[in-house]
C-alpha cells in the first residue's frame, strides 16, 4: 500500500469520525465547525489525489465561505441547539439500501490509481496530450474548464448568479439600516484596524495573482473571486459595512455581478458573430491559440467578477438581517 493511499484512508477515517460526532451533536455551532473540519480534511484528500485546483477551491469555499456564511446565518437565526426528535426508521432503511447499492457498485471499480481504468482511456488522454497545444494553457484543468467544457463553466457562473439573485430576492426588504455593532464595527481595536488595513491590499493582490495565474498553476476566476470577496469581507468586519458600501455601493455590486455573466456570454456571442460556434475562442484572433488565450482570459475575468460581487452581496444581505425574532 502506498503512503499516499494510506494517508487518504487515514484522512477518510478521521472524517468519518467527525461525521459521527456531527450526527450526534445537538449543538449547531459545533455542527458547523465539524462540517468545516470535514471540508478542510477533504481539501487535504484532494491534494493527496493530485487535484490541486479542487483542493484550493474546497478550502476556500467549503471550509471558508460556507463556514463563514453558516456562522453568520446562525447568528441571525438565533438558534443554538437542534432539540427536535430525530426520525430513525425510514432514514436508516434508505441509507442501508443506498449504501448497499453503492458498495455493490464500487466493488468492481478499477483499483485506486489504476492507469488502465476506463476513465483514463477515453477523452482524458486527449486533454492531456493535446490540451496544452490546442489552447496554449499548461494547466489542463483550466484548459478543460474554460475552453473544452467552457459551456459548463458558463452554466456554473449562472448558478452562482442565481444563488445571489435568490438570496437578494428572499431577503429583499427585510434588512435593517440602523446602526448595530455588526453593521457598524467602528469600535474595533486600533491594532486590529491597522493590521487589517495593511493586510487587505495583500489579499487583493493575491486574488489578482490567482486570477491571472490560473493558466499556469492552480487558480482561476472562481478562486480569485472568492479571495477578493474575502478581502472585502475582512474589511467590512473591521471597519463596518457602511465603510465598505461607500467603496462599493450595492447598486455597483449588482451591476458587476450582471457584467460578469454578460462578459462570459458576450465572449460566446462574439464568437458567434465572428462565424464560430458559441464560445469557440479560436475565431477571436488570427491565430487559433491566441484566440483561445484571449477567450480564456476574458471568461475567467467574467467568472471572477460575478463570483466576487455575488459573494459580497450575499454576505451583505445576511449581515443586514435583524437577529432572531418573529414577524
Amino acid at each position, binding site marked *: 500500500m502506498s503512503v499516499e493511499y494510506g494517508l487518504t484512508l487515514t484522512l477518510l477515517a478521521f472524517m468519518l469520525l467527525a461525521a459521527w460526532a456531527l450526527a450526534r451533536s445537538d449543538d449547531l455551532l459545533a455542527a458547523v465547525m465539524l462540517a468545516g473540519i470535514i471540508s478542510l480534511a477533504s481539501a487535504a484528500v484532494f491534494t493527496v489525489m493530485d487535484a490541486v485546483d479542487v483542493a484550493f477551491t474546497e478550502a476556500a469555499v467549503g471550509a471558508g465561505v460556507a463556514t463563514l456564511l453558516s456562522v453568520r446565518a446562525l447568528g441571525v437565526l438565533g438558534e443554538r441547539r437542534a432539540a427536535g426528535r430525530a426520525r430513525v426508521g425510514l432514514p436508516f432503511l434508505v441509507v442501508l439500501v443506498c449504501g448497499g*447499492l*453503492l458498495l*455493490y*457498485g*464500487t*466493488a*468492481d*471499480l*478499477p483499483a485506486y490509481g489504476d492507469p488502465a*481504468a*476506463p*476513465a*483514463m*482511456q*477515453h*477523452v*482524458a488522454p*486527449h*486533454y492531456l496530450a493535446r490540451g496544452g497545444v490546442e489552447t496554449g494553457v499548461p494547466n489542463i484543468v483550466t484548459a478543460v474548464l474554460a*475552453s*473544452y*467544457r*467552457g*459551456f*459548463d463553466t*458558463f*452554466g*456554473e457562473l*449562472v*448558478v452562482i*448568479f*442565481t*444563488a445571489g*439573485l*435568490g438570496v*437578494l*430576492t*428572499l431577503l*429583499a*426588504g427585510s434588512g435593517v439600516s440602523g446602526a448595530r455593532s455588526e453593521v457598524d464595527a467602528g469600535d474595533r481595536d486600533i491594532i486590529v484596524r491597522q493590521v487589517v488595513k495593511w493586510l487587505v491590499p495583500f489579499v487583493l493582490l493575491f486574488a489578482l495573482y490567482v486570477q491571472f495565474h490560473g493558466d499556469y498553476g492552480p487558480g482561476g476566476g472562481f478562486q480569485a473571486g472568492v479571495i477578493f470577496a474575502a478581502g472585502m469581507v475582512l474589511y467590512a468586519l473591521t471597519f463596518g459595512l457602511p465603510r465598505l458600501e461607500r467603496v462599493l455601493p450595492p447598486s455597483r455590486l*449588482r*451591476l458587476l*455581478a*450582471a457584467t460578469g*455573466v*454578460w462578459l462570459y*456570454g*458576450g465572449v*460566446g*456571442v462574439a464568437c*458567434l458573430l465572428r462565424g*464560430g*460556434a*458559441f*464560445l*469557440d*475562442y*479560436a*475565431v477571436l484572433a488570427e491565430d487559433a491559440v491566441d484566440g483561445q488565450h484571449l477567450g480564456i482570459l476574458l471568461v475567467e475575468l467574467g467568472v471572477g467578477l460575478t463570483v466576487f460581487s455575488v459573494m459580497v452581496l450575499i454576505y451583505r444581505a445576511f449581515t443586514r438581517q435583524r437577529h432572531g425574532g418573529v414577524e
Partner: protein
Amino acid sequence: MSAAWLPVLPVVAPLLAAPLWLVVRRPQVAWWGSMAVGAVAFAAAAALLVTVLRNGPVDYAFGGWPPPIGIAYRIDLLGAFVLVLVSGVSWVVSWAGGRGVEREVDEPRRALFFSAYLLCLAGLSGMVLTGDLFNLFVFLEISSLSTYVLVAAGRDRRALPASFRYLIMGTVGATFVLIGIGLLYAGTGTLNMADLAARLPEAFDRRAVHTGIVFLIVGIAIKAALFPLHHWLPDAYARAPGVVSAFLAATATKVAIYVFIRVVFFVFGAQATLEALAVQHTLTALAAAAVVFGSWAALRQDDTKRLLAYSSVAQIGYIVLGLMLADVAGLQAGLTHLFNHALMKGALFLALVAVVYHGGGQRLSDLAGLGARMPLTAAVIVIGGLSLIGVPLTAGFVGKWLLVEAAAAKGAWWLIAVVVVGSVFALGYVGRMLEALYFRAPAAQGGAGIAEAPLGLLVPALVLAAANLYFGIDTRLSAGLAGRVAAALGGAG
C-alpha cells in the same frame, strides 16, 4: 440571423437577459422584457422544430470542440418537440406575470422574480437540448435553484418551508444524478450521451454501470415527482405564487420525464435497462400507484391548488405508465399525455390565479358562485377539468385513448383498470370544482353581476384553454408528432 444561432438562442437569450432585472429594477419593464425574451426563445424553438422536421437532427458543438471532447447539443425530434412545448407554455404563462405578481409578490421582489423566471426557463431548455450528461446536471441546478426562489417569492409564509423541503429533496435528487454520472463515467470514460450509448454495451456488465443507472433514474424520478418521491410537489405547487404553479406544473416535471426518456431509451437502451435491471416492473408498479394514490388524494383536498397538485402526481403516473409499456404505441401515448397535460395544468392554474386575484381564496368554497360572476374564468376551469377527465374533443381524451389502446394491444388489462379508476376519481375531483362554480351560492354576499378577471390574466388562461380544445381536435402536432418520435425511439430502443 443565421441558422447557427438557433440551437443557442433558447438557452442563451434568457440567460443573458436575466441579469438585466438585477440592474433595472422596474417590475413592468422586467415583465415586458421577459415576455419579449420568451417570444424569442419560443420562436427559436419553433424554428428548430421545423429544421429538425426538414433536415433531421441538429448537432451543435460548443467551443468548436467535437464531442466527446467538448460539450455538444444533439437536437432530435423529441428534443425539439419538448422544447417547443416548454418554451411555448412558459411564454404564454408569462403573459399572466404582470398582473399575477401584483397580488402575490411584494414590490421589492417583483423585478427579480422575472429574472428567476428567465433563469428557470433557460435551465429547463438547457436540460432539453444538451447531449452531455454533466452539462445536464449544471442546467438541472440552474432550473432547480431558480425554482426554489420562485416558489418562495410569494406572500404565503407556508411557501417558505415548502421551498426549503423542495430544496433538500431536489438537492438530494441532483446529487444522486451526480453520483450516477460519476459511476457511468468511471465505467466508460465519457460524459457525452451519444458516445456513452456507443460505449455502454461493452461496459454493461460492470456493476458500477448498473448502480450508476439506478442512481441516475432515482435522481430524475425525484425531479419528476414520481410516487413515492413526490412529497415536495403538493406543497410547492400549492404555496407558490399562482403563476409559478402554472409554470412549474406545465414544464418542470415534463422536462424531468423527458430527461428520463432520453437517458433510458437513447443512452442506456430500453431493452437492457428496463429488463436487465427490473426497472420496468418497478416503475410500472410505482406509476400505477401514483395514478391511484394521486387521484385519491386529490379527491380529498379542500384546497384547489393542492387538488391540482395531487392530480399532477397522478398524471405523471399516466405518462410513466405509457412509457413503461416500452413499445411505440405506449411511448406515443406517454408523450402525447405529457404534451396535453402541460396545457391542462397551465390553463387550470392560471384560472386559479384569476380567482385569487379577485380576492377569492384557494379553497373549494371560494369557487362558489363564480360561474356567474366570472364566466370566462369558470369556462377555463370547465375546459381544463374536462380535459383532465379525458372527455372527447378535449386534449385529454386523445392521450387517454392512446394509453388504453397501447395497453389493450399488449393485453395489459390491469393497466386499463388503473386508468379507469384514475378517471373515475378525476371525475370526482373535477366534479367538485364544477359543482362549486355553478351550483353553489357564494358564502359571503359579494356584489352581484359580472366581475371578470383583468385581461392580463384572462387572455393567457383562455389561450391555454383554447389549446386544450384545439389539440383535442387537431392532433397533428401532439399525437402526430409524438407518434413520429415514438417510432424513432422504438427503432433506437
